[in-house]
């Protein structure tokens, strides 16, 4: 009985812990890179910006795009916000475009206040219900908020970070992707 019991004690999910009553599911901080021949294009990632303008990932065809999923309510997103802004400014010289996907904010106002507070220079799609995230199925899915996905200049998903990141990690990852290394 004891043997069976201990064998079974390992029966919890390795990828996702059970969430308790925090009100959201936390990811576990994973960086994944894909070799060039493993990459594929996501589905349509499009919508309206927080200001109401239409926008799409396809608008940036030909450039490396860093897609960051965030919410104004999300503590790790706030902690990494300054790093993301700095990374976006540093990588802008290399033609890298940052695109945010704002998810699970119940109204644009809080998200816009976030953008004001952290001086975010790049646009974000307002996607309360997370529809654009479904487009990443089959590639590297952004399974937590925050997550960052790097799309190479041929429109294919090349790398992802699930969880909070830092400027140096992100810049290093994007530069690897741009250099054609996996």
């Amino acid at each position, binding site marked *: 009985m004891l043997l069976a019991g201990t064998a079974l004690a390992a029966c919890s*999910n390795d990828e996702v812990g059970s969430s308790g009553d925090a009100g959201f599911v936390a990811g576990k901080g994973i960086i994944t890179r894909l070799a060039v021949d493993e990459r594929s294009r996501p*589905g349509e990632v499009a919508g309206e910006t927080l200001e109401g303008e239409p926008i799409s990932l396809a608008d940036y065809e030909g450039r490396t795009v860093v897609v960051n999923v965030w919410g104004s309510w999300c503590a790790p997103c706030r902690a990494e916000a300054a790093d993301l802004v700095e990374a976006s400014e540093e990588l802008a010289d290399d033609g890298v475009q940052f695109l945010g996907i704002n998810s699970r904010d119940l109204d644009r106002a809080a998200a816009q206040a976030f953008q004001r507070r952290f001086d975010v220079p790049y646009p974000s799609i307002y996607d309360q219900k*997370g529809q654009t995230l479904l487009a990443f199925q089959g590639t590297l899915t952004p399974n937590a908020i925050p997550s960052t996905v790097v799309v190479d200049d041929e429109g294919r998903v090349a790398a992802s970070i699930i969880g909070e990141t830092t400027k140096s990690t992100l810049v290093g990852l994007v530069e690897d992707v741009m250099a054609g290394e996996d």
Partner: protein
Amino acid sequence: MSSHLDTAAASPPPAPPPAPPALSPRELGRWAWRQLTSMRTALVLLLLLALAAVPGSVIPQQDVDSFAVSRWKESHPELTPLYEKLGLFSVYESVWFSAIYILLMISLVGCILPRTKVYWNAMRARPPRAPRNLGRLPEARELVLDESPEVVLDRARQVLRRRGYRVEPGNGELAAERGYLREAGNLLFHASLLVVLVGFALGSLFGYTGGVIIVKGQGFSNSLSQYDDLAPGALWSPDDLDPFSFTIDDFRVEFLRSGEQAGMPTDFSADVTYTEQPGDEPRTHELEVNHPLQLGGGSIFLVGHGYAPLVTVRDGEGNVAYKGPAVFLPQDSSFASFGVVKVPDAVPEQLAFEGLFLPTYAFTMETGPFSRFPDALDPVMSLLPYTGDLGLDSGDPQSVYSLDKDDLEVVKHPDGRDFRLDIAVGQTKELPGGAGSITFDGVERWVKLQISDKPGKRLALGGVVLALIGMLGSLFIRPRRAWVRVRREDGRTLVELAGLDRSAGGDLADEVDQLEELIRHDTPKEKL
């Protein structure tokens, strides 16, 4: 013999018989295996499984309603450490429950597989030969007929065959048996139990259950980050989520207005527009408490509802720092709801509001403010505002329903009293010191949905149905044996007929009477 008795008193008492030799490890293993796979052990384990499910039903479970667990823990602080140690808040994941389940499976498999061969052979066995003296069987008859033995025997064989017996002809006699399906029923029952266990195991390993609160007008896409809470099976992966999405277009709830049960909800339903894959034609569904939306990738159940007041918060600089619904959680059946509005991007200082939402405001000196009716007839919020540091910027995840007050201060009146504000729909209250203002714009409702996918549930259902059929078969099919012996005596044919019931009950006498009647006079009749 006598000499033995004489000497018995004088000689020392006989040595006790030698103890049986200790079991070798292999023999010990065999003994343990036999014990484990015995039916008694299986029944004990089944009973334990049922008993183990009792705490799972009575004590709030972490994976089903973690808010209920937190509330229970708060109200029972002495019992909580004990319950946590025993794993009573997640009974179905606990080590001891899994151990019972696994042992039961091993016991069943270890018992059923060898028995399968036995049942199979029993099903195909030929009826045994007639005992020598048929007269000693419980129901025996003797007939004397005029026809020749061969004719009589032939007629007897046809009669028995028509009545469903398997007949084995012998030398001047017949052996017959019916009711082989009882063995088949037994076999089906035991095998189906295995199927049920496998079905449940599949569901709990590869399935998941998740919950989400959605405000009316908003929606959900089936991606891991969109869930509020999730209890995954051990072998489940977020890539297994099917890409459906839906919007809650409308939600209706009715409360009884009068009578004894005033305040009871009588009906909830939600209108949902959904797509199973991105790009599909949207379809609609009316979601009611017992009418889930069944999609390929999961089932969506309506399990609760509550209020989300709509507020606008302006910060010290006059910008709108928060606007929209804030989900408040109901505390009891009056739907007085508790919640928090966090405004982390208010400038110059972060703001927060914590307090009660009362759908139908009432006040007495004894109880203070309370809600007199669960419908939103006269909504009022009673809030305490805070300024300072919400603790969100450090990156440590917080519950969206509670404030971390370590670095927050209550906003106070100039005279030092707490600035509690009571605000009704349409009103705006300014915070002292120019910290900002809050406007109560209106009230929206939210629904709580449970989304789950349990592969193998149809397998489990099929298994239960088959097990029932098998059990009915093994209970109600009566195996029976019959023998007929004929011989020639004095120019006439003497027929001995006997029957034997292999299980209790049933009226053997009737059956043998029928057989006798038919053997005497059987002529092919039309079926009426």
